[in-house]
């Protein structure tokens, strides 16, 4: 029953997707604006029905589906029952399809208000992408396969036929323990997917503009807001993954340059470039050709990333299911790249902007420079990620690229990025006079230099941290000074408080000041990353007997007692560790090991602090003594705060493209 309902939903979605594709190509041929309502209803409705069917199956512990039998158990806590819908391959592809439905519906709502062929063709492109995803759900990644041969727990064989006679296991295998260990991992995938899937929208508009040979600001205008929103969600998604890794996995870090992590980071870098250069195109009518290329490569990277994580082509500590989905994604990736590049090269001469960047000493000059740097960074990370595949193809060696490669290349690139960011974020458009630049940059630069100098005087020896701190203050001070000057001028002119004046200025140009908020986040995260990695202190295998006190860094750690707790789905074993710092008691913390039927996962205790985090990871507990890995990560909170501020700035900025208002405000601010 539930299998039939799910499959019908998928079929409806596929049908709707094909319909949209056909209507889109009709619009392309004839220039008409078809009514796409029915087909969009089928696509979106079908995706909703399928996801609901899967949720019902999970919440009612219906083990007749092999998906529930193999990824779910009746003892799974409620929250994780819901998140099980995307914790395994088939369900996560369904979530992807649902997101496509949501973004498609939103695109259609804009189209309905003012139907034109650009909108219709763009929806057709989204339809094409949806055909691929629904097609995969129906064939190689179907979460509604009926279990035809049950094991004691779980399912051995299954059938795509929804009418097959089900053999229902008594109990399911349960969701992977790692994926029910912490709430973060339940919400990390949806955020990541909103970001990933949302980047289909700029791609769709870019392809539509190229296919119709309608270059100009319109496709960029429609893409910009969606790119900002998707990019913000992608930021949070990547961040939540790191936070989960830090809070749950207990290896004492949040980012390892693993191929799977890179897969989520690569489209983030190109999307970062895209939101900036789209703004330049909208403002100055330049960089259009570049924007087409960025929109295409960003979307291409989301598909390539999924191929990398799903194919087993690279060695990764994150081992996802390997299935026929891998080759399917590779095929789709090649199709996208070949198809869009062909279209792009045919139209390239028509899409090149008439104007050129006049002077590098301008806001667009800085954005152009950083676009190049971001592209270099993308190519570098991409090379490191896929290089092992080429080595594997051309020789019989299997290799992996160590972290050092990424650390070595990323450090100089990001430092220059930060510098150019600080130099150009307050610069006027078109061309800046040296006097204007000096006026806006002198104080921020002095503040930055003073910070670096002070940190050296205070005994800081980590070169990365010293530079990052100086650049961060430089980046922070620029827009702060600008806002202060504008606000105090407005305040005296209009007789209002400074705060009120500042709030008015910000509200009138959300696009710009949202961006500045993101830059504040960048400054904060830069310091967080530099300090937490450059100044960290680590001791592995610290042995503490019961009742004994051990000194580490400025802390005193006492192993007070052990504890055990039993839950239906897991057993917990852990230690009560009393933490004192400089003689003052901070509290009792409980690093623990959660034991699931076949696997044990250490869950660290993090003593978060303003100055630094103390990170306790229990490695072993044995009656009278424990073995701890202990880390100190200075300013770790800045990594999380900075990341969320970046995303918040993006969302705030996305509201602010109400054309006329911001145009005027921009004129005023750049006058």
């Amino acid at each position: 029953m539930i299998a039939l309902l799910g499959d019908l939903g998928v079929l409806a979605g596929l049908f709707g997707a094909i319909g949209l594709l056909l209507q889109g190509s009709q619009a392309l041929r004839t220039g008409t604006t078809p009514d796409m309502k029915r087909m969009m209803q089928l696509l979106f409705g079908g995706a909703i029905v399928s996801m609901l069917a899967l949720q019902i199956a999970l919440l009612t512990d219906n083990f007749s589906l092999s998906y529930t039998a193999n990824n779910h158990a009746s003892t799974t806590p409620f929250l994780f029952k819901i998140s099980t819908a995307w914790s395994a391959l088939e369900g996560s592809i369904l979530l992807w399809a649902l997101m496509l439905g949501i973004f498609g519906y939103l695109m259609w709502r804009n189209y309905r208000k003012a139907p034109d062929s650009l909108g219709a063709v763009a929806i057709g492109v989204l339809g094409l992408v949806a055909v691929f995803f629904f097609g995969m759900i129906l064939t190689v990644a179907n979460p509604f396969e009926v279990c035809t041969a049950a094991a004691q727990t779980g399912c051995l064989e299954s059938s795509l036929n929804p009418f097959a006679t089900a053999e229902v296991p008594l109990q399911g295998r349960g969701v992977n323990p790692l994926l029910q260990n912490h709430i973060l991992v339940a919400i990390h995938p949806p955020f990541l997917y909103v970001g990933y899937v949302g980047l289909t929208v700029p791609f769709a508009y870019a392809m539509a503009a190229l296919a119709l040979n309608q270059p100009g600001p319109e496709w960029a205008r429609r893409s910009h807001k969606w790119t900002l929103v998707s990019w913000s969600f992608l930021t949070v998604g990547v961040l939540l993954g790191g936070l989960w890794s830090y809070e749950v996995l207990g290896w004492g870090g949040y980012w390892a340059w693993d191929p799977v992590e890179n897969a989520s980071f690569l489209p983030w870098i190109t999307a970062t470039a895209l939101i900036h250069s789209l703004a330049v195109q909208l403002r100055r009518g330049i960089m259009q050709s570049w924007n087409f290329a960025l929109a295409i490569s960003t979307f291409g990277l989301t598909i390539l990333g999924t191929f990398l994580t799903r194919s087993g082509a690279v060695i990764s500590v994150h081992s996802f299911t390997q299935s026929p989905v891998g080759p399917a994604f590779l095929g789709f990736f090649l199709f996208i790249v070949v198809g869009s590049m062909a279209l792009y090269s045919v139209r390239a001469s028509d899409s090149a902007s008439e104007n050129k960047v006049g002077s590098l000493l301008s806001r667009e000059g800085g954005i152009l420079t950083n676009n190049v740097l971001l592209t270099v960074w993308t190519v570098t990370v991409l090379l490191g990620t896929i290089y092992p595949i080429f080595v594997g193809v051309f020789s019989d060696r299997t290799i992996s690229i160590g972290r050092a490669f990424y650390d070595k290349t990323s450090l100089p690139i990001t430092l220059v990025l930060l510098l150019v960011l600080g130099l150009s974020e307050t610069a006027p458009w078109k061309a800046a006079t040296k006097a204007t630049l000096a006026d806006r940059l002198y104080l921020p630069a002095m503040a930055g230099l003073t910070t670096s100098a002070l940190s050296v005087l205070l005994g800081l020896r980590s070169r990365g941290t010293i530079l990052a701190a100086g650049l961060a203050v430089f980046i922070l001070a620029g827009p702060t000074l600008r806002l202060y000057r504008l606000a105090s001028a407005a305040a005296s002119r209009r007789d209002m408080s400074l705060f009120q004046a500042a709030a008015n200025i910000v509200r009138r140009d959300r696009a710009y000041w949202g961006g500045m908020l993101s830059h504040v986040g960048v400054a904060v995260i830069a310091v967080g990353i530099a300090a937490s990695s450059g100044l960290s202190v680590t001791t592995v295998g610290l042995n503490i007997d019961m009742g004994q006190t051990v000194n580490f860094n400025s802390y005193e750690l006492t192993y007070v007692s052990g504890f055990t707790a039993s839950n239906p789905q897991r057993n917990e074993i852990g230690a009560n560790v009393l933490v004192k710092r400089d003689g003052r008691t901070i509290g009792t913390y409980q690093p623990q090991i959660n034991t699931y039927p076949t696997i044990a996962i250490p869950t660290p205790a993090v003593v978060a602090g303003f100055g630094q985090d103390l990170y306790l990871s229990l490695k072993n507990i044995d009656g009278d003594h424990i073995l701890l890995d202990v880390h100190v990560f200075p300013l770790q909170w800045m990594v999380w705060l900075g990341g969320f501020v970046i995303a918040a700035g993006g969302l705030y900025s996305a509201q602010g493209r109400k054309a006329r208002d911001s145009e005027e405000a921009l004129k005023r601010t750049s006058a």
Partner: protein
Amino acid sequence: MKRPLTIILLVVVGSLSLFLLGRLLSNSEVLYLEPNEALEQKVELGDSQFLLGGLIRPGSITTDGDVLRFVVTDFTNAEILVRTTETPPELFSDKTGVFLEGTFEGDEFHATTLLLRHEETYEAPTEAP
């Protein structure tokens, strides 16, 4: 016309950075081997660093002061004794893989880093424990 000069400059800078990147890439290469491959190539490997991936054989973990030893195996049942001062995933069983970076020292593999592999697929024991 400035254009040809700009293009030449770009090509030179581009190829130079690609060359440097390539050098850095091949320098950062870490060979990945599973136990059976590592044993086969033991002579050629000498004391060079590589990444060993496999499964910890349950019950093989022993401690000797700070030094920990355990056996890493694979699906061909090839076995390598690993010595490390890193803390091992004591409670991890044969369902969990490890990545170890290090070198052969005699018959032992000396691991300087130890990473756990976390899987998405998960199988509960088919027989109740």
